[in-house]
Structures are given as C-alpha cells and as structure tokens.
C-alpha cells in the first residue's frame, strides 16, 4: 500500500558493514584470504605499487617545497596514499573523480601533472588544471560540499544514458557536515552511480574520531540512507582496489551508491601550519608507521617475486623525474596578471567589472609609467 511504509522490510544484511575492515594483505605483506573479495591481479598490484611510490614521492617533495617557501601550504596524505591510488585506479577515463585538498595523490594517479595540481597551494590560482581534461573536479576546500556535486554529475550521466561512475572523496571529519547527509540521501533516492569514499585518517585537524562520531563505524552511516557500507583497511592497496573496484562495478551496473570507509592514518600534521604534538602522541604515529601502505605492498610483491629490482628502479626513476619536474615547475614564478581577476567572473564581464579592470590597469600603467 502506497503511503504506508511500516511494513517495509529492513533489508539490513546488504547495508551493514562487516565487523572487520576488508584486508587482503596484512601489514607484514602476507596475503590473507577473504570470503568476498579476491586479491587483484599481479599487474594491478604492480601498477598500484608504481603509483604508490610516486605518490609518496609527490607528498614528500611537496612538503619539502613548503619548507623551502615555494609552496604556501600542503596537506600531506603521507600514509594515506593507498586510498588515493586505489580510488583513481579503479576508474575508467569516462568516470569522474571528486577530490578534496588532501587528495593530490589521487589526482597524480589519475594522470594530472602535479605542477598543475599544486597551482592552488602555490597561490597562483584556485584550480590549476582543466577539470574536463581528466574528469577531475576542482579540489574542494569547504568540507563535504563536493559530495552533492558528485551526485549531480552522476545523475546527469544516468539521464544521458552514459556509463559514468563518480568517485567522491571526503575525510572522517567531513562526514559530520550536513552536505554529507544530503548527498548520500540524494544519491540513494536517485540511485545515482556514486561511490562515496571516506578516508578515515582518525583526525579532523586536532579532533579525533571519537569526538566526531559515536557510530560503530563511519561505514554504518550508509544504513540510514539505504546505502551499503563497507569498511576496508586503508593501508592495504590490494583490499582497496578490490573493494572500490567492486563498488564502482556495482554502481555502473545500476546498483546505486555505496559508502566505503577506509581506516588509515594521517602521518604528518594536518598541514605544515599545524602542530600535531598538541593533540597526539608520537607512539600513536609510530604504531601506524608500521602499517605503512608502501612497504606493505612492496613486501608482498617482493615476496611473490613480482616486483623485480628493474621494475623498482624504473619506478624510482619515474618518481625522481616527477619530483624534479615539481621542483622546476614550482620555482617558476609567473608574473601575476591582474586581467585574470576580471576575465572569469562571468562569461561577459559586467560593465561594473569592466570599469574596475580599467581602474586597475590605470594604476598599473601609472606605476610602470605607461
């Protein structure tokens, strides 16, 4: 009977995450069997490893550039790279990625030039890349606000009959914002092909998860929307590839949205401007260092003989090249062009903006004596 939902069967089984996060390779690099998810192919894992080492290098190079004053600020994802690599790797070229300020590694894995990505943090412009070139939205700063956008892109794709899946990233803290709620609900009601991927790195700046939520896990938030929730070891690239890959496949097949929570850790402070010693112990960081996603996958691949010294060396070379390109690209200081201030506010600048632009041009003209 329409208008009476009291008998609605609570199909809970499919919504509630399992008790333990999915893990396919343990911290020592040993494969662990799993009922639902199979280990990805060696090829996929090698690709992930390449992206992981590159991402680590990009993170650390960017942090170094901040120390040298060549970047204003950098929110490093050191320790979380497996999440970001997997999020990008499971997508096709036609899919969309919606990243946050911390997801540089996902963007680099998707193929974006780190120099373009870091334009934001260098302070040259708000977004340095063309979002359509790789189907990557601008990195979102206002927390959770990108999630409804992701739903919109996905819903539009469905209306147009396109097989696009959208991967929408956010942090543990961002799950508390109203926009998280509204986005998950819209996605569920419209069965939009979105994978909501929460990198639970245990902190929102200084606020630990226990002060952020009293839920059994963040993945449990899916239940209230009718969205399946899944927990995954966020430092296990293999598990991430398997879980996110399955979620993307399900979404593409019309199965609707999923919520994936990765348990990981932010090894560095929130940004270089943050002082993490005010709110957490070194011991805690140390314990997580032992679960490092790069060494874990390396141990596995080496143990299986999949990662040859040649391959490892090639990966390191590529990381070197990218880091060098970052150093070069970010030391060039383009002459700031004030015309840019007015050129993109509207398709056609309003008369008001034209007048203001003329004013600035006049000031500059006087300065340079034109």
């Amino acid at each position, binding site marked *: 009977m329409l208008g009476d939902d009291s008998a609605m069967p609570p199909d809970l089984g499919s919504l509630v995450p399992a008790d333990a996060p999915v893990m396919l390779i343990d911290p020592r690099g040993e494969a662990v069997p799993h009922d639902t998810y199979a280990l990805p192919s060696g090829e996929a894992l090698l690709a992930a490893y390449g992206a992981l080492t590159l991402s680590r290098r990009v993170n650390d190079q960017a942090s170094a550039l901040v120390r040298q004053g060549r970047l204003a600020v950098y929110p490093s994802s050191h320790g979380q790279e497996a999440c970001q690599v997997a999020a990008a790797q499971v997508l096709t070229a036609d899919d969309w990625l919606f990243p946050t300020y911390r997801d540089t590694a996902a963007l680099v894995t998707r193929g974006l030039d780190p120099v373009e990505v870091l334009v934001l943090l260098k302070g040259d412009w708000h977004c340095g890349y063309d979002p359509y070139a790789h189907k990557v939205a601008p990195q979102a700063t206002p927390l959770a606000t990108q999630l409804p*956008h992701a739903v919109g892109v996905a819903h*539009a794709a469905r209306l147009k009959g396109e097989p696009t899946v959208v991967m929408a990233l956010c942090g543990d803290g961002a799950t508390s914002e*109203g926009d998280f709620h509204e986005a998950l609900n819209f996605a569920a009601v419209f069965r939009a092909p979105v994978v909501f991927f929460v990198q639970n790195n245990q902190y929102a700046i200084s606020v630990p998860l226990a002060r952020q939520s009293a839920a059994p896990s963040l993945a449990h938030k899916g239940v209230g929307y009718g969205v399946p929730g899944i927990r995954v070891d966020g430092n296990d690239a293999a598990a991430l590839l398997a879980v996110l890959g399955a979620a993307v496949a399900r979404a593409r097949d019309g199965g609707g949205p999923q919520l994936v929570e990765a348990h990981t850790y932010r090894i560095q402070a929130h940004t270089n401007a943050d002082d993490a010693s005010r709110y957490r112990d070194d011991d805690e960081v140390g314990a997580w260092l032992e679960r490092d996603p790069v060494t874990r996958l390396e141990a596995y691949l080496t143990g299986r003989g999949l990662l040859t010294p040649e391959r490892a060396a090639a990966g390191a070379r590529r990381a070197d090249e990218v880091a060098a390109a970052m150093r070069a690209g970010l030391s060039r200081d383009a002459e700031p062009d004030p015309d840019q201030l007015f050129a993109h506010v509207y398709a056609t600048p309003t008369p008001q903006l034209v007048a203001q632009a003329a004013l600035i041009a006049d000031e500059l003209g006087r300065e340079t004596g034109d």
Partner: protein
Amino acid sequence: MTDVEKLTMGQALNRALRDAMAADGSVVVFGEDVGPLGGVFRITDGLTAEFGEARCFDTPLAEAGIVGMAVGMAMNGMRPVVEMQFDAFAYPAFEQVVSHVAKMRNRTRGRVTLPMVIRIPYGGGIGGVEHHCDSSESYYAHTPGLHVVAPSSAADAYGLLRAAIDSSDPVVFLEPKKLYWSREEVALDAGVPGFGTAVVRREGTDATLIAYGPSVPVALEAAALAAQEGRSLQVVDLRTIVPFDDDTVCEAVRSTGRAVVISEASGFASVSSEIVARVTERCFHSLAAPIRRVTGLDIPYPPPKLEAFHLPGADRILDAVDDLQWEES
C-alpha cells in the same frame, strides 16, 4: 504577427519553463514539490506530465542538496532550474551558492561554467508567516559571480526567465510572490531581453523613482497619485540588479535631479544602499537633494497583521518625494 497572450506572472513563468524545456533538452527542473504538485505556487504545473519525470522531478527535502546537485548536473552538460520553496528556505543552500555556484567559473578560469537558475519566490505582501516573506536579494547581489534578476511584470517574467535559462552563468531569479497573480499581455515571441538593461516604466520630469521587482507597481502607483497632485515622477525598473544598468539609471536621475530608491528589503547594507551610493557617486552635481530611500525597516519581517507598516507604500514614497528639498530649487 506576434503571439500575445494575457497571462498572470505565475503563468508567464510556467510558460517560460515549458518553452525553454521544449527548446532545449538539457533544461531540467527540480526541487521540493515541483513534480506532480506543480510547486506550491504552481509555477511548474504540468511540466512532469509534459516532459516526463526525468526532466521535472521532486527531490528529497534539502536545499543545499538541491543546489549542490544542480552544480553537478550543470558540470555534466545540463541546464538545471531549481526552485527554493520560499526565500528563507534558500538559506540552507547559502554555502553552496556563495562558495560554489558563484565561484566555479572563476575558480576554473572559465573551464567549468554553471548555466543554472535558482528560482526563489521572494518578498512579502501576501500575509505569509515568518520565513515566508524575506527579501534576500542583497545577500546574492553582494556575492560576485551571480546574476540577480527580479522581474516586475508578467512579460518581463517570461522574457527574463528565458534569458536566465539561456545564460551560461548562474542566475538567482527572484520572483516577487505578491505579483504571481497580476495579469497582463505577454508577447511570447518578443525575444529575450539582455541582462543589465533597466527600463523607464513611466516618464516624468520632477523626480525619479528607482525600483525593482515587487516595488515597481508600488512606485507606479505613487507616480500616478503624484500626477494628480501635479508632480511628474519618472519610474525606472532595474529588472536586473546584477548586472546593474548605470547608464539608464543615471541618465534618468540626471534628467530630474532628484531620486527615491524603493525596495522591500531592510535598508541597511542592501541593494538600495548600493543604488544610492553609486548613483550619488555618478550624479552628485546633478542632484538637488540627497537621494532618499523607502525600504523595509531594519527589523525581522513582521507578522501578517503588521506587514503593512514594514512595506514601502505609495504614501511613504510620496512623503519621501516631498522631502526632496523642493523649496530650495
């Protein structure tokens, strides 16, 4: 051989949506109760029946979600037209509007554009309870990156909404809800007016009344009354608040040397402040008296029984005109 029909403003808006949807398959309409119900003001009446659920649909009840989803759909090739049910119920979407809708083109240097319209039934005068009568134009007009439009007649409502939907930039489209039922002849094929063109609604020589949206009919009423007393008032209708038509407004004010700005919104730090400021900056030496404002009071929108005291009425406008230092000229 123009196609002219007698329509209320509500009907004209409905026609604009229908015609835009028929002309362009990427136009989609969504929001709260806009589907089978046709919206609480029936502006979207019949759209779901005519164009199907994919083109006009109800959403869950969440305004930030609605505007945020529109951003995403616009990013992916659609032209969303969303409805906020009443003015104050657009506030939950404020962050989406200010931090994304207004900034996406600029953020991406023109690579991502957001051709979307946020329709907001706005303003008072219908005896609505709290939160149903806000004049929120100043919030939007102060936010660079948005176009802000407020029609004052059925014909303009049709033309400006078509223009808004055609625009490649986001438009906050403010519909004066007390004018929804006012009827006039609308030329449906008159072509789409450009944004940023104010219009002189009534010629006059003694002073200029500057108004927009719901205040235009009030200004015209005041001008008609003044005429009976032998005073000739000119009435300018802004039509679009952003962009602002300095040329038309300043030319008008210079021609009379006196002006009154009229707006329902509270006056402090508002669109009416801006009009006074910018017109004075430009026309200072043509002014015989300082420009006066007749606006809503600086109070929360009052309950129905008291709204008449708050809203600019013809009498208050005429008082302000009387104050324009006539003795000195």
